[in-house]
């Protein structure tokens, strides 16, 4: 190793790390969204499926994917030397929920990315975060050629609670994704305030 020892005595900064999940159906643009704001090319990490996962490991239709691993793409945003935000794309298929449980633990919140042509693909994710009262927002990825629907129509179609923000975005655009993330963190703050209030009453 060629790491210099010149910095001896000056311990490296140990950052506070936070994570945001990016969920949604297969091919909706999760990795694109992560890549748009990440300071590193999205990295891929894999976990091997445990034997208990095997009986339900039906890979029909995704034959090209490995049958033994589940991959997650993630990116990193260094907000400050001592504050680092990670974005994790959740594994596409719902059967990988055991990974979602681990990912969502301690998560700041989640972005559910939706494609209006296949809105039903994000039902599972919406349901998942609702049940665990993890703050989330729905971000409609405006694909070229897809019809534009007002946010209100998407809210009704997904039967979302009034408090859940619905925003339009372009997952390829850094500025657009930044706004989505800021919207989510704001929502997480409101969510936390509501919970504190509820706890007091």
């Amino acid at each position, binding site marked *: 190793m060629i790491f210099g020892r010149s910095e001896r005595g000056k311990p490296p900064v140990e950052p506070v790390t936070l994570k945001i999940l990016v969920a949604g159906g297969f091919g909706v643009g999760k990795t694109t969204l992560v890549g748009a704001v990440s300071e590193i090319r999205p990295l891929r990490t894999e976990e091997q499926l445990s034997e208990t996962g095997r009986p339900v490991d039906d890979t029909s239709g995704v034959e090209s994917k490995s049958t033994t691993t589940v991959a997650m793409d993630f990116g*990193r945003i260094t907000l*400050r030397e001592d504050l680092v935000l990670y974005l994790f794309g959740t594994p596409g298929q719902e059967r990988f929920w055991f990974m979602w449980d681990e990912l969502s633990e301690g998560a700041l919140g989640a972005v559910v990315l939706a494609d209006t042509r296949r809105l039903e693909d994000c039902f599972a994710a919406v349901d998942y975060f609702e049940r665990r009262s993890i703050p989330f927002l729905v971000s409609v990825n405006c694909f070229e050629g897809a019809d534009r629907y007002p946010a209100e129509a998407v809210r009704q179609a997904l039967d979302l609670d009034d408090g859940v923000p619905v925003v339009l975005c372009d997952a390829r655009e850094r500025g657009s994704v930044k706004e989505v993330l800021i919207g989510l963190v704001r929502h997480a703050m409101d969510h936390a305030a509501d919970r504190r209030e509820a706890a007091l009453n």
Partner: protein
Amino acid sequence: MSEDGQARNHWFDDEAGPVVRPYAMTRGRTTSPAQHRLDLIAVVVTEPDAGDPESDPGLSPEHVEIVGLCRGAPQSVAELAAELTLPIGVVRVLIGDLVHAKLVHVTRPVPPAELPDESILRDVINGLRAL
């Protein structure tokens, strides 16, 4: 294994995927005694007074690589797994070994119960705006 004649001698086939190799690095262990549940964003920091890990015969090249990577800058568990192209489960065991050997320590991410801390969330918003 793909040779026809040989394949029949194995109790598993190619469809089983590479089930053996990664965990051979951990000598078959899927947990380690020092392994507290390591979050994917837990940060691994090399101890400043950690000696040369290569001189420890009990450590594998992967152990040594983790110590080296985290000496330059602290790394999250997810980043280490991606960097070493190893499954997260394997990396967790290796990190557990290194914690046990006192070569690295792990900083826990903000505990879930304390997470919605307003000042941190405000810092995140300001940080995102400044990007």
